[in-house]
Each structure stands twice: as C-alpha cells, then as structure tokens.
C-alpha cells in the first residue's frame, strides 16, 4: 500500500460530519478568547481578522482538492463541498463581526462598502459566494447539470478577491498576505488550460 493509497483509504473512513465539528470548534474558542482577554486588548479587530484568515485558508484548501487528485492521486473530493460551505460560514461570521461589532453604524457601513476599495472587493467576494452556497446541495447539482460546474468556477474569482482584500488592508508590505496570494495564484495557475493539457499529454 502506497502512502497515497493509505491517505485515500483513511479519507474514505472519515465521516464528513467529524470534520465539520472540528473546523467549527475555532468559533466558540475564539469567542471565549475574545471575552477573556486572549485576543489582546482590542478583541474586535483580532476576532474579525482571525475569522477572515480561517475563511481564506478554507477557500484555499478547497482549491487544492482538484490538483491533489490530478497530480498526486489523492482523492479528497468528498470533502470539497464541506470546505466550501465552511469557508462561506467563516466569511459570513467575519462579515458579521465587521457589521455589528466593528462598525455598527449603518451609514458608515454603506459608505465603507462603496468608498473603500478593499471593503468593496471583500464584499464582492462574499456576494459571489452566496450563489455557490445556495447551489451546494445535490438537488442543485442535478438540476443545473453542466451549468453547475461553470457557476462554481466563481469560487476562483472569490478566492482571488479574498487574497487581494487581505493584501490591501495592511499598512505596509506584510509577508503573510503575500504568501496567501502566491499560494492562490499558484493553485489557480494549475488550472490554466495550457498547463492542464501539458500534464495530460
């Protein structure tokens, strides 16, 4: 049994709901830390940033599923929907913290969405994820047929917007957002038709 076979066998045995629970544990944990000083003296921004970063990580994990199978033969396809939905949950929580705890003033929220490019971009990324979350059920997959795959390519745009959103909010060139962006671009590059056909040939 090769390593890949072992991973695949293990993945087959792990129920999806276990991972759902594991990946949702950070939510109560972060809220607990925020209440007890574990997120520093200003917990609102810290909570907002933590949730956003987890969301971006989940979107990136979602992007790795196809290349892992294509190039390494590792089959984690059964988890892809879960990662997408978890990402949507975390983006929603990130947005909710910004709306309610961070800004909390309706006029300023609107002004920020319209006037601040990094917020506009982040918002656009969230909006793109809504139809994907809504059509993540089996019924929609059947109903939409080939259109479903096309529609869900929007996730490429959404993750790209998420990476740009992260890069734009730092005051200086910080290392972390650049690393995230490089990984995103790399994973998207693997999907370029040219690269794919080369691999196939």
């Amino acid at each position: 049994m090769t390593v890949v076979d072992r991973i695949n066998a293990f993945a087959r045995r792990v129920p999806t709901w276990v991972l759902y629970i594991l990946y949702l544990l950070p939510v109560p944990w972060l809220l607990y830390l925020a209440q007890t000083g574990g997120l520093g003296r200003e917990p609102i921004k810290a909570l907002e940033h933590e949730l956003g970063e987890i969301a971006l990580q989940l979107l990136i994990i979602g992007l790795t599923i196809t290349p892992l199978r294509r190039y390494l033969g590792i089959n984690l396809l059964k988890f892809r929907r879960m990662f997408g939905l978890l990402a949507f949950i975390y983006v929603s929580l990130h947005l909710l913290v910004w709306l309610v705890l961070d800004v909390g003033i309706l006029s300023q929220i609107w002004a920020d969405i319209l006037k601040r490019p990094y917020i506009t971009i982040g918002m656009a990324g969230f909006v793109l994820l809504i139809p994907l979350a809504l059509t993540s059920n089996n019924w929609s997959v059947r109903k939409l047929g080939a259109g479903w795959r096309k529609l869900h390519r929007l996730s490429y745009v959404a993750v790209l917007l998420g990476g740009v959103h992260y890069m734009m909010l730092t005051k200086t060139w910080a290392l972390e957002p650049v690393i995230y962006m490089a990984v995103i671009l790399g994973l998207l590059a693997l999907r370029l038709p040219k690269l794919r056909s080369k691999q196939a040939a």
Partner: protein
Amino acid sequence: MAHRWTNTLTHKDVTPQAHFMNRRQLMAGAASGVALAGIGAGAQAEEALEPNPWEDITQYNNFYEFGTGKSDPATYAGALTTDPWTVAIDGLVEKPGDYSFKDIMAEMTVEERIYRFRCVEAWSMVIPWNGFELADLLALAGVMPEGKYVRFETLYRPEEMIGQKYRTIDWPYIEGLRMDEALHPLTIMATGIYGKTIPNQNGAPLRLVVPWKYGFKSIKSIVRITVTEDQPVNTWQALQASEYGFYANVNPTVDHPRWSQATERKVGGGLFSKRVPTLMFNGYEEEVASLYEGMDLTVNY
C-alpha cells in the same frame, strides 16, 4: 519666546496612580452632580477624560521597530538598552551636541499630562503621560531664527530592535513638526506613564507626544533632534504620500483613503465596545486650530 507656557507644577505635583484612581472616582461623582445641575457640558467632557489602564497602554502598541503586531512591542521591547542614552541635537541650534538623557532630565521639569491618543487606524486611548514641554528642550539647545521645522529620528539598532531586521519601513523612523507646533505648550516629550518610567514598548526613554495629531507623529525612542529650514519628510509620508501627510492632524472630516476617520473605538472596551465620534484636532481644537488658519486641511492632511 514670550508666548511660551510656563510650568507652575513641579515633580511633587505628579499624582501617584493609586491617588489618581481615587481622585477619578471623586471626579466622576462630581461630574454627575454637575450634570444634574445642568451646567457646562464642555467642562464636564474634560473632567470625564478617563485614562486607560496600564495594561491597555503598555500591551497594545504600534512600534514597528519591534514587529507589526499590536502585542509585538510588549513581547520584544525588553531587549532594548535605554541606559546610557544620548540625544543628538543639531542643525540650526546655538548649542549643537550630544545631550545625555541624564543631563536633559536634570534641566527639565516633569509634569503630568492626561491626553487623548488617537491612532490613524481609528482606535484611541487616554494616557496619563509624564514629561516636559518640547519647547523647554529646544530652549536648552537654543533655536536659531532660521529654524522653521524640527526633525526627529528614532534609534536604529537592529540587534535590539528585531523588527528592524525586516525592511517593513525605511529605518530609521523619521518624524517632523513645524516650529510653531513644536513650541506649542501641548507638545511634550514623555518620559513616564502613570508616574512610572515609560516602558520600552511605549518609546523609552523619551518620546514625542503631540496629542492633536495621529499617533504616528508621536515618534518614540528619539536619538536625534534636528532643527531645519526645510520641511522634513516623515517616514509614513515617504512610504505612502497619498495616505499619510506631514501634518496628520486628527480630523474626522478628512478620511484615510482606505477607512473613515469620522469615528474611533476606545481600546479596552471588550467585544461590545462601540465606536464614538472622533473630535476635531482630537478635542484640542480650541488650543491648536489657530495654527492652521487659512490652510486647506483636505490638502494638508
């Protein structure tokens, strides 16, 4: 310099933290009494300035010399040696030279100043500084009449300031003030907080505090003060002139390109702390607005 503010308080007048906290309770009681009587809302706002606890002030810092995270300075600033310390005062001054921190302190009168502190990132605190007026220090070196600006420089010592090992910004950190801003009685060099020696993460052993400007103007751990004829280029302006200017006066009507400056959040309020309106010149409009008369503050941001 006839217009200058003269200190009437001495070191003996600095309130120890414990007394200070008691006094605050008394004042809170007095303020509510005043409110019931319906008198002077403005004066009441002044009285209500409630300093953040020591932990907020010393654990939530922007001091990129020790890293870009808010808790990095508290974690890494312990490595900084602040004794001995010399400040080079040069440029258009009568007595240029290296002034040791000890010699400076022997000449200065330290007093307590409770100021609002507003970061350009839209968070704020109230800090009970101990320090002396910058004007007193400049008088020590004697400013020549041609001196129009003051340029400040932070220590560059990457072996002790680990953030300087990365070129996040162009080291050393530079700031500048116009001469009238530098000589303004509100402008101080802080050497303490709550009556204690200023912690390294807050800019030990001496840092500038200009309470009507965004926090990044209040340069920390100063090793050089130069009086110049030309306007200095401050670090953040050099880095991103479209977002950070030379003046950087707190102004709720002029937004940062990427976020609103109309409101701010006081650090330390927990998860449900609400934003409050930002005050023009950070609440020091009466004292400093005249310095900028006739200037377009949307251009000179």
